[in-house]
Structure formats: structure tokens, C-alpha cells
């Protein structure tokens, strides 16, 4: 089986590289099994082309495979040969069953967490002066209207939050209000969950449409109080 040794080592080495080494290279990610299979198929094709370039190498390559399959003079490998003949159809049957079985999982959902706001809500600046009194007042409004869900600590863990999916935003998390402009928050607070575009899955958000209950000035003050309380700053373009 000398001529087969190198190709087998090459295939195993290639698999190990794709499966275990490549994902650990910085900036890389685990490869999907279909891609690994494609690469192994290319490697195998390369080996077959290389081994069949000349008549001698061709015989040296195919000979052992042929002998193994026909069971001619293979001695102790006979048991392995029968094992392969039994396992191969079983494997094919199992794979076919797996790929035809009906999934028990609900439909997957994708939701854009920060969808684009309507044009009239981009680039607005907070008209309320940033004074200690206004921030204080904003925090007071926040405590009354927002904290039941978004939490007294601005962490999204208010007492009313537990049943809601999506969970109320955690303002202390740097990926929420810290990466948004004040005008974006103004839109989200004014229009609430029902104001989201379709990619924001508006039918699931419990966020109230505060424009029907609170004047704009209060909303701007709440925004100030939120940034101050969560120790974050709004994103700016400067």
C-alpha cells in the first residue's frame, strides 16, 4: 500500500488544517462543513490527476485500491473490507434520513436592532440646554416613565422587563445609546415599538409610543438624563 500512504496522509493533514488550524488563525472563522468538503474534493482531484500522469504511477496508485475492493491477497484486511461494505450503505441511509427529516424548530427570525430612522429624525440636535437642572429633571421623568423596563440603573433590568422579547435596551452597554445620536433616541422614544420599520420587527417591541403622552421637551430631557445616568455620551460626527 506504499503508493497510497502519501495521498492518505495528505488528505488527513488537509482536513486537520481546515478543521483545527485555519479557524485559529487571527481574523479567521470556523469553516462550514460544506466548504471543508469542497476543499477536500479539490485536494482528492489533484491527487488523482497527479497519480495518473504516468502509466507506472497510475498502476501503483490504483492497484492497492483495486486489490482492497476485490479482496485479493489482502489477508488480515479482509475484515476491514467487509466492515466498509456494511458501513457505507448504512452511512448513506443515515445521511439521507437526516436530510429529509422535518425540523422541529420554529422559523428563524432576524431582527435589525438599530434600523435606519426616517429622514426627518436624522441630525436633530437637542434643543434643551444641558444644565444640571434639566439633566436632573430628565432623570426624574426617566424614573417615572422608563425605569420600570429599562431599570433604575439604566441596565435594561427593570421589574417589568422579564416577559419582553426583545429585552428592553441596556443603556450602560456601549453598543446601545453610546453608538447612537440624540436624534435617533428622540425617534425611538417618540414612535416606540410600533414606529419601527419592518426589519425591526415592530410587532414584538413593547416600547410605548411616547409622543401621545409626553411633550417633545420632556423627551429631550429624558435623553439627557439617560446619557448622564448611564455614563455614556451621544455619538457625534465631529
Amino acid at each position, binding site marked *: 500500500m506504499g503508493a497510497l500512504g502519501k495521498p492518505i496522509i495528505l488528505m488527513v493533514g488537509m482536513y486537520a488544517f481546515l478543521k483545527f488550524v485555519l479557524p485559529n488563525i487571527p481574523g479567521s472563522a470556523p469553516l462550514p462543513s460544506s466548504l471543508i468538503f469542497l476543499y477536500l474534493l479539490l485536494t482528492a482531484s489533484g491527487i488523482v490527476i497527479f497519480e495518473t500522469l504516468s502509466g507506472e504511477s497510475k498502476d501503483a496508485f490504483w492497484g492497492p485500491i*483495486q486489490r482492497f*475492493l476485490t479482496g485479493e491477497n489482502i489477508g488480515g484486511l479482509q475484515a476491514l473490507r467487509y466492515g466498509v461494505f456494511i458501513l457505507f450503505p448504512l452511512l448513506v441511509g443515515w445521511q439521507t434520513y437526516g436530510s429529509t427529516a422535518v425540523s422541529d424548530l420554529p422559523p428563524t427570525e432576524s431582527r435589525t436592532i438599530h434600523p435606519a430612522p426616517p429622514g426627518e429624525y436624522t441630525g436633530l440636535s437637542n434643543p434643551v440646554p444641558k444644565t444640571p437642572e434639566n439633566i436632573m429633571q430628565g432623570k426624574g421623568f426617566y424614573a417615572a416613565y422608563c425605569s420600570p423596563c429599562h431599570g433604575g440603573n439604566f441596565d435594561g433590568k427593570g421589574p417589568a422587563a422579564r416577559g*419582553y422579547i426583545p429585552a428592553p435596551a441596556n443603556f450602560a452597554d456601549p453598543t446601545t445609546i453610546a453608538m447612537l445620536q440624540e436624534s435617533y433616541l428622540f425617534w425611538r422614544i417618540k414612535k416606540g415599538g*410600533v414606529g419601527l420599520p419592518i426589519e425591526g420587527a415592530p410587532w414584538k417591541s413593547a416600547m410605548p409610543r411616547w409622543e401621545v403622552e409626553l411633550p417633545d421637551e420632556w423627551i429631550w430631557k429624558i435623553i439627557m438624563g439617560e446619557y448622564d445616568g448611564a455614563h455614556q455620551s451621544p455619538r457625534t460626527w465631529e
Partner: protein
Amino acid sequence: MKPANQIIGQVLRVGIGVLTAIMIGGVTIGSAQESVSVRATLMTGGVPVDDPSAAAWSSAPPATFPMSPQVHWQNRIQEVTVKDVIVRALHDGKQVAVLVEYADPTQDPDDAAALEFMVGDKKAHFAHGQPMLQVEGGPVNIWFWKNKAAKAVDMNAKGFGTLKAQEHQDVKAKGVYSNGTWKVVFSRDLSTGHAEEDVQITPGQFISIAFAVWDGRKDGAGDLVEKGSQKAVSSWWYFRADAPPDYSGYMYAAIAAALALGFQFVLIRKLKKGQSA
């Protein structure tokens, strides 16, 4: 006679084709069912529509969903009695029954519970199908039970303030209270003749479901603490009635295994012939 390697070449091409098909098909690994959906187990011999304690319920897997005070619209409430609901469901191909179970320290005449479904293909906001500003939503179908009424009301809504009982009442409900726990069974035919108003339950298909509960206790002044929009609510979750068992997967697997066996047989035969010639 063909040379042996030519035969092997042919065989390899077929084999690679088969292998590719297998790999693309992929392996489906069975996954644990978390509480993201209610599964209505298929049973025979009639669902226990009047009996929340029937033995048949033990064959339905329980799913637990967290509840929150309703905050989307005024009037709000900051705290509610019921923190979780445990839901089971059964169906027999004709009728479906949904058992909602929750802890409530006191039995009150105004204790109430409700199921909510999206109707048809249009999405609906979980808060009574509240109109959405950028998406055209659909109505919700609400199955409402109240202890003192001892029956269900089949209703529709498309936004707060639009809740209305239907002309044709298709839903039944029965509540039993014991040991600080309410068990309420809602039941209906899987499909009704009114697809515009009623949720239609097709076995095998996922639909959206949400829950609401009112604790009918009164405060010191004799006023109800939870009433109307002041209630415990859940987000949207999934509901699916089991489809009848489908054994076609085993048939396909047997065919594939037989083909693979035949392929091996032909391969060996050809190779042996090639050698002896």
C-alpha cells in the same frame, strides 16, 4: 474489455456524485426544545376539553413563558401577580385544547386569562394588534376566559379600544382552581369557517401565540387592581399542532442504503471481471 482504471474512473465519478449529495444534504442533529413554542401533541379519542386534570395532559410537553405588566399603552400597571404561565396543548386532528396553568394566591370572581393569536398571514403587534406606523398589520384573535362568566368569549381586535366579541362564538373554556393554582383549558376546532376573524390551526405549521392574565383581587377600597389594559402579558411565541406521523424519511433512507449496496455490488463485480480478463 475496458481497462480496470477506466472502470474505476467511471465508478469514482458516480461515487463522488453520491458523496457530494450526502454532504450537501448535511446531518441534522436533533435539538432540545426550549420554551419558544407550544407543541400540541397529537392524540386519539377526543381531547379533554372540560378536564384540566385529565391524564392525557401528561403526554403534552409543558412550555413556560415569562409575563410582564402591560406597559405599551395606558392605563399601565407596574406590577402583576402572575410571573409565569405554563402551557400545554393537545389535538386530535379535529379539535385543539390549550391548558394554561399559573400560580395565583387567591381565587376571585374576576380572575381571567386569555390567549391571543395572529390571524392570517399579516403580522400583528402583540398588544392587541396595535397599528404599526410603517407596516400594515393584521387583526388578532383573542380567546378570553373569566372565572365568574365560566365560559370563553371569542374576540377580535386591531388596536387598543377595538376589542369586540365575534358574532359566531367558537371557543370553549373551563377553569379549575386548586392549591393556589389556576388551570384553564381553552378549546376550539382546529379550523373554522371564518378565516378573516379566527386563527386557523394547520397541523405542522407554526403560528404566533401570546398570553394575558388578570388577577381579580381587589384593593383596600374595593377596586380591582388588575383590569382591562392593566394585566400581565407575554411577548409573541410560537404554537404548532403536531402533524400526523410521517415515515417517508425511513423509506428514503432504505432506498438510499439499497442503492449504495447495489453500487458496491456492481463495482466489485466489474473490478473482478476486469482483473480476470
